[in-house]
C-alpha cells in the first residue's frame, strides 16, 4: 500500500523529469563531452576525434574573432548597465509619485520588452538602414537642417556596435523600469514623511532613503542585465542581417556560426562552455559584492 502510493506520487513528476532529462541534462552533458572533441557533425559521433584541451587552447590563444565578439558583447553590456538602467531608474523615479497617466506610461514602457528580438531588429533596420536612401532618421535630420548628424548607422563599423547597443537598450529598459518601480513602491512612505519633518530636502532623502533601500534591487537588475545582454544575439541577426561581420559579432553568434557555417561542433561546444563559465563567474562576483555591501551597512 505504502509502496503503491509512493509509486503513484512519482508518476506526477515523471513527465517533467523525462522532458527535463532529455532536453536539458543530456544536452548539458553532451556539450561538456563534445567540447573535447573535433567533430564536423557529419561522420558518426563515435568517429569524432578526441583532442583534449585543444579547442580551449584555440579559444584562448588563436581565435581573435572570438575575443572581438567578447569585447563587443562587453561593450553592449556596459551601455546596457549604464545608459539603459539609468534610464529605467529615472523613469521609475518619475512614475513613483502622484502623477497623472501613470498607468499609461507603465503599459507603454513595457511594449518593447514583449516584442520579439527579431521583429525589433527588423523594424529598426527598416527605420535606420541605408538601402535605397530609406533611412528615416537621416531624412528627418536633413529636413530639420542637421545633415552633419546623418550617418550610416548600421554599415559604418565605428557606429554599428553603438547602434546595436542603443536598440538593445530601447528593447530592454521597460523591463528594468518595472522592477525598479516595484522596488520603489515597497519603500514605506512614512520614512519620507519622517525625513521631511526632520527638514530633509528631496535630494537628501533620495540619498539617505531611496538609494540605500534600492541597492539590492539595483544589484539584481545589474546581474540580470549582464546575463541577458552578454547572451543577446537574435536582435543583432534582425538588425544587422546575415552579414555577421566582426564589428557587431557577439559570442553566441560565433557559436552559431561555428556550428552552422564551419561545421565545427566540438569547437562550438567548447566556446559555449568557456562562455557559460565566464557568465557564472561574473554573476557570482556581482552577488558576493552585493552581499558584502549590505553587510557593511549593518
Amino acid at each position, binding site marked *: 500500500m505504502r509502496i503503491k502510493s*509512493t509509486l503513484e*506520487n512519482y508518476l*506526477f*513528476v515523471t*513527465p*517533467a*523529469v523525462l*522532458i*527535463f532529462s532529455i*532536453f*536539458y541534462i543530456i*544536452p*548539458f552533458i*553532451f*556539450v561538456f563531452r*563534445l567540447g573535447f572533441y573535433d567533430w564536423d557533425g557529419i561522420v558518426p559521433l563515435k568517429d569524432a576525434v578526441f583532442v583534449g584541451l585543444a579547442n580551449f587552447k584555440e579559444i584562448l590563444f588563436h581565435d581573435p574573432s572570438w575575443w572581438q565578439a567578447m569585447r563587443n558583447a562587453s561593450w553592449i553590456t556596459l551601455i546596457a548597465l549604464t545608459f539603459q538602467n539609468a534610464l529605467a531608474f*529615472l*523613469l521609475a523615479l518619475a*512614475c513613483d509619485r502622484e502623477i*497623472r*497617466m501613470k498607468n499609461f506610461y507603465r503599459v*507603454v*514602457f*513595457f*511594449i518593447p520588452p*514583449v*516584442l*520579439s*528580438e*527579431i*521583429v525589433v531588429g*527588423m*523594424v*529598426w533596420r*527598416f*527605420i535606420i538602414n541605408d538601402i*535605397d536612401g*530609406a533611412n*528615416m532618421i537621416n*531624412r528627418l535630420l536633413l529636413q530639420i537642417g542637421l545633415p552633419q548628424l546623418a550617418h550610416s548607422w548600421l554599415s559604418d563599423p565605428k557606429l554599428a556596435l553603438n547602434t546595436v547597443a542603443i536598440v538593445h537598450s*530601447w528593447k530592454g529598459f*521597460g*523591463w528594468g523600469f*518595472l522592477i525598479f518601480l*516595484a522596488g520603489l513602491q515597497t519603500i514605506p512612505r512614512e520614512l519620507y514623511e519622517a525625513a521631511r519633518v526632520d527638514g530633509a530636502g528631496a535630494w537628501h532623502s533620495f540619498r539617505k532613503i531611496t538609494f540605500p533601500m534600492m541597492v539590492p534591487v539595483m544589484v539584481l*537588475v545589474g*546581474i540580470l542585465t549582464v546575463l541577458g545582454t552578454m*547572451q543577446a544575439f537574435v536582435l543583432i*541577426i534582425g538588425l544587422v542581417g546575415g552579414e555577421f561581420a566582426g564589428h557587431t559579432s557577439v559570442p*553566441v553568434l560565433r557559436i*552559431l556560426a561555428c*556550428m*552552422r557555417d564551419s561545421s565545427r*561542433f566540438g569547437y*562550438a*561546444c567548447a*566556446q*559555449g*562552455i568557456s562562455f557559460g563559465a565566464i*557568465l557564472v563567474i561574473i554573476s557570482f562576483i556581482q552577488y558576493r559584492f552585493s552581499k558584502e555591501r549590505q553587510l557593511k551597512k549593518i
Partner: protein
Amino acid sequence: MKTAIYYKAKKNTINILIHLFLLTVAVTCIFPLLWMVSSSLKSQDVIFRDTSFLPRVFHFENYYRAWVEGGFGRYFLNSIFYTAAVVIGIVIVASLAAYAFSRLKFPGKNVLFIMFIAAMMIPIPGSFVALYVLLNKLHLRDTPVGYILAMINVGLSSSIFLLKTFFDKMPTELEDAARIDGCSKLGIWWHVALPLAKPVLAVVVVFNALSVWNEYVLALIIFDSRRFMPLQVAIKLFQGEFVTNYPLLMAGLTITVLPIIIVYLLMQKYIVKGVTAGAVYG
C-alpha cells in the same frame, strides 16, 4: 519672501518637465510600431518618398498578398499551433510536478526540485548545438513534435517554481475534504488544485505564450522545411528573398506583432505580476 504661488509654480514646472521626459520616451516606444503599420499600407513605389504618417492611399491588399503569396497565413497558423501546444504541455507537466513537489511525499523529492531550480540559474549558451545533434539522433529534428518538446522544456523550470510557490501557500482544507470524499490524487490535482491555482496559471500561460511566440533560435536550428516554420523564422527568410518589397515585409511584421500586442494589452496585469514575481525570487 517666497510665496505660496512661487512654490505652486515651481511644482507645476517640475511636473511638466517630468511629463515631457516620460512622454518623449513613450513616443519612442510607440513610434516604430506605428511607422511599421503605416509603411505596410503604402505601395512599394512611394514607400521611400511618402514620408507622411498617414498614407495617401491605403494599400490593404499588401496584407492579402503577405498572407497568401508571402505564406504568412501558413506561418501564422504554425505559430498559433506551437504556442497552444507548448503552453498546454507546460501547464499540465509543470502543474503535475509542482503539485507533487508541494504536497506529495516521495524519496528524492528535494534533489529533483533543486535540480529544476539549478537549471534556471546556470546558463549554457551553447546548448542549442547539443540539442541539434540530439534531435537529429532521435529523428525529431525538422518535426513539430521535436520543437514542441524542446520548447516545453524551456518553460518548465520557471513554471514549476511559480506553481510550487503558489501551492505551498494554498490552504489544504479543500483537498482534505475531497480526499475524505474518496477523490484520487489525480482527481484532486485536476478538480481542486488546478481551479484554485487559476491566478498563477494565468501568469504561467501568458509568459510562456509570449516566449513561444517570440522564440527564434531553436526554430531556426530545428526546422529546414518551410511548411513547419513559425513566423519569427519565416519573416527573416522572407526579408532575404523579397528584399526590395518593404510594404509586404512590414505587413508580415505587423501580422507577427499584432497578436502579441493584443495579448499584452489584455493581460498586462499578469505580465506585471510575473515580472515582479521573477524579480522577488531572484
